[in-house]
């Protein structure tokens, strides 16, 4: 990769400033009824901060993709209020950590109205002495019937000194809901590694392919082909850097 390419950053093209309702607090973004918004945030590269809290009105839809590359330490808080009926949110995150990186993802998704949907997918690969925590909270209010709330947190540990913590927290006060959460933590699958090696792919390259494969769902919300390519390139470079 040339030097010029290395400097390239992902722009904030998807971000549309949202007018806050009167009396709205700073750092709170409100998606009015029927609005949809797709955000891409690369920690340390995308200028500015993400709103610390999103409020979604009736039928509003929000997608947030967040990427944290090696060499970054940051808290990543997400507070989402699904305040209007039928609102939807998808949060997708990839954290690639090495050295002394410390990343804390705190999500709090509150289903306050009926028929809302939320999906959280967070992926981490941790090497070195890095420390990653995922605290995922889902609250379903008593009135929020027909809620669908899903959460997955998948983690790969590349070193014995890296730490991964995963704490799902579900508070469900309604009775007609579909909720699930799942967390996995492990190392790279050796069966798949052997399969690739038996085809002549060297161990290091096999591990890179496995990690790229693991990370690929984190790009699921990035529909813009060019942006996707660019992020894929950054992910591959970062993954090679983790070894």
């Amino acid at each position, binding site marked *: 990769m040339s030097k010029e390419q290395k400097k390239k950053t992902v722009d904030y093209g998807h971000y549309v400033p949202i007018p806050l309702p009167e009396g709205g607090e700073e750092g709170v973004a409100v998606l009015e009824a029927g609005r949809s918004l797709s955000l891409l945030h690369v920690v340390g590269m995308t200028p500015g901060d993400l709103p610390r809290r999103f409020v979604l009105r009736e039928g509003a839809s929000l997608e947030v993709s967040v990427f944290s590359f090696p060499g970054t330490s940051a808290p990543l808080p997400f507070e989402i209020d699904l305040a209007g009926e039928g609102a939807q949110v998808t949060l997708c995150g990839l954290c690639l950590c090495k050295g002394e990186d410390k990343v804390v993802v705190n999500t709090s998704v509150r289903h306050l109205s009926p028929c809302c949907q939320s999906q959280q997918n967070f992926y981490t690969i941790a090497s070195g002495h890095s420390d990653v925590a995922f605290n995922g909270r889902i609250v379903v209010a008593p009135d929020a019937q027909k809620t669908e709330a899903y959460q997955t947190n998948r983690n790969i540990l590349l070193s014995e000194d890296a730490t991964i913590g995963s704490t799902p927290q579900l508070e469900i006060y309604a009775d007609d809901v579909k909720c699930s959460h799942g967390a996995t933590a492990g190392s790279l699958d050796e069966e798949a590694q052997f399969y690739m090696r*038996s*085809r*002549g*792919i*060297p*161990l290091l390259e096999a591990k890179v392919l496995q990690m790229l*494969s693991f*990370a690929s769902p984190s790009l699921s919300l990035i529909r813009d082909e060019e942006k996707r390519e660019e992020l894929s390139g950054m992910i591959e470079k970062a993954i090679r850097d983790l070894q």
Partner: protein
Amino acid sequence: MAKDILLDIRSLRAGIEDKEILHGIDLQVHRGEVHAVMGPNGAGKSTLSSVLTGKPLYEVTEGSITFNGKDLLQMSPEERAWEGIFMSFQYPVEIPGVSITNFMKTALNSARKARGEEPLKAGAFLSLMKEKMALVGMKSEFSKREVNVGFSGGEKKRNEIFQMAMLDPTLAILDETDSGLDVDALKIVADGVNTLRSPEKSSIIITHYKKLLEYVHPDVVHILKNGRIACTGGFELVDMVEEKGFDVFS
């Protein structure tokens, strides 16, 4: 003049986690030969293929394996592949997020790199893919699919034969590739092996059944039982297994 020995297994004792499974195997495969290894469950067939391909956790405690004049046991699995060994897996592994194209390109170019060759040009690679996909009756969209993800049993085995054709090995090991295949898929596997057949190349077909062997017609048949070669002969052994089972061999 006697043909060259491609694979020479001498007094091989091997196993997994301190449990010896192969209790002294001697087996020589000459160039150009197709060998069949038949045996009941638990005979050590898969251990033999695992040891040949260098699967981690399998341990060789005694004996030697020479391939192409080189000490095979000193090589990593990828080095064995570069040297020309290929195994068609009994249970091919799914690799989500990696396309068949990308997988094959990485595999082929890794071997080329190891031999000090330039990576294959995009055009040449694509026409090779096309040619080999046609050989196993795969449609072009197959190349875009993720390796083995959502494949039926037959598709997985066809993908193995496709990879074999792409990598053009000197020694192909088919580890129960015929299990669970219908007649059409079986013919594709057999065609793959027959196409590869040349005076320079050899295959070892590990199987329970006669069917595949009828299409491929091995030169030599071994009966593996309780970790030992119980009998070596020609096609008549296949018929014997079919009629009387493995009990007649001791």
